[in-house]
């Protein structure tokens, strides 16, 4: 390789190529190879296989509905897990409010009842530590899911898909389902909202 070729190769290293560009480059190389010459014929076969492999990968990705994974399943799973953290934090807060009230009542009682109550409340405080631990573990899982989501999106983009057209389809499909489990935050209706809705039919 001469100096000019080497410089060109160095420049190419820093560039990211789309699937189309890679296939195009391989096809150009294929076109310039003499298929009747035995050593280059082998190279021709290898490159042909590579083109087929890339094209197959693209169709397999489409078949796997990988866009659904990156644009729908992973974000939904991450949102659900975030909601678990919020709900356990809120429930733990309620438990601790109750414990603090019990402690005040225990202070007005005499031993051994007050001691027994204080010990029981201590055990509840200790057990409430689960929320911190599970919260940290779930946050770690959410980060991992987001990392996977980013990588899957990169792969999809590299193979020339765009997620947008499929995303609207996914949302429409999902809206049709009545089995969506507990709602998250702002999407959820309160009992008041539901009572108002029911009352509007009267």
């Amino acid at each position, binding site marked *: 390789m001469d100096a000019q070729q080497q410089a060109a190769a160095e420049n190419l290293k820093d560039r990211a190529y789309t699937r189309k560009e890679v296939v195009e480059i391989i096809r150009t190389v294929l076109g310039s190879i003499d298929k009747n010459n035995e050593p280059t014929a082998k190279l021709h076969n290898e490159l042909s296989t590579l083109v087929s492999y890339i094209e197959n990968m693209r169709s397999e990705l489409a078949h796997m509905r990988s866009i659904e994974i990156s644009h729908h399943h992973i974000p939904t799973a991450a949102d659900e897990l975030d909601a678990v953290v919020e709900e356990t*934090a809120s429930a*733990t*807060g309620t438990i*601790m409010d109750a*414990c*603090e009230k019990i*402690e005040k009542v225990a202070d007005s009682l005499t031993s051994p009842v007050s001691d027994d109550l*204080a010990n029981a409340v*201590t055990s509840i*405080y*200790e057990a*409430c*530590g*689960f*929320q*911190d*631990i599970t*919260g*940290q573990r779930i946050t770690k899982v959410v980060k991992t899911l987001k990392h996977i989501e980013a990588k899957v999106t990169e792969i999809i983009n590299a193979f020339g898909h765009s997620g947008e057209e499929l995303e609207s389809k996914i949302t429409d499909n999902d809206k049709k389902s009545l089995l969506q489990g507990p709602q998250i935050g702002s999407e959820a209706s309160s009992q008041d909202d539901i009572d108002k809705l029911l009352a509007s039919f009267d």
Partner: protein
Amino acid sequence: MVAVNKDMNILVVDDYQTMIRIIKNLLKQLGFNNADEATDGGMAFEKISAKNYGLIISDWNMEPMTGIDLLKKVRGSGNKVPFIMVTAESKTENVLAAREAGVNNYIVKPFNADTLKTKLTSVLGEF
């Protein structure tokens, strides 16, 4: 032996409000009623710079400033306040790093009231 001053100011640092409440309530049961709180190292350092604390009890894993960075900053400023790390990070390298940074004791989550009392005693003395 000098008696432990139970009126000392204690700073509890954790990004989980639940854990702050647990530690503050357990401290209260042990007779320590003056506990402030902060939810990350930066907020804690501001409080430490503005007030005289007798003890810092801090989580490790917080954003934007972690507990270990807080510890380094506190020690870097020449403050020798007793510092207990309370964290789920239980790897040997974490404990060693905390020790290197100047931690006085280390509690692994989940912990119980007895562990907290034992560690307080080891750092502050019998109370």
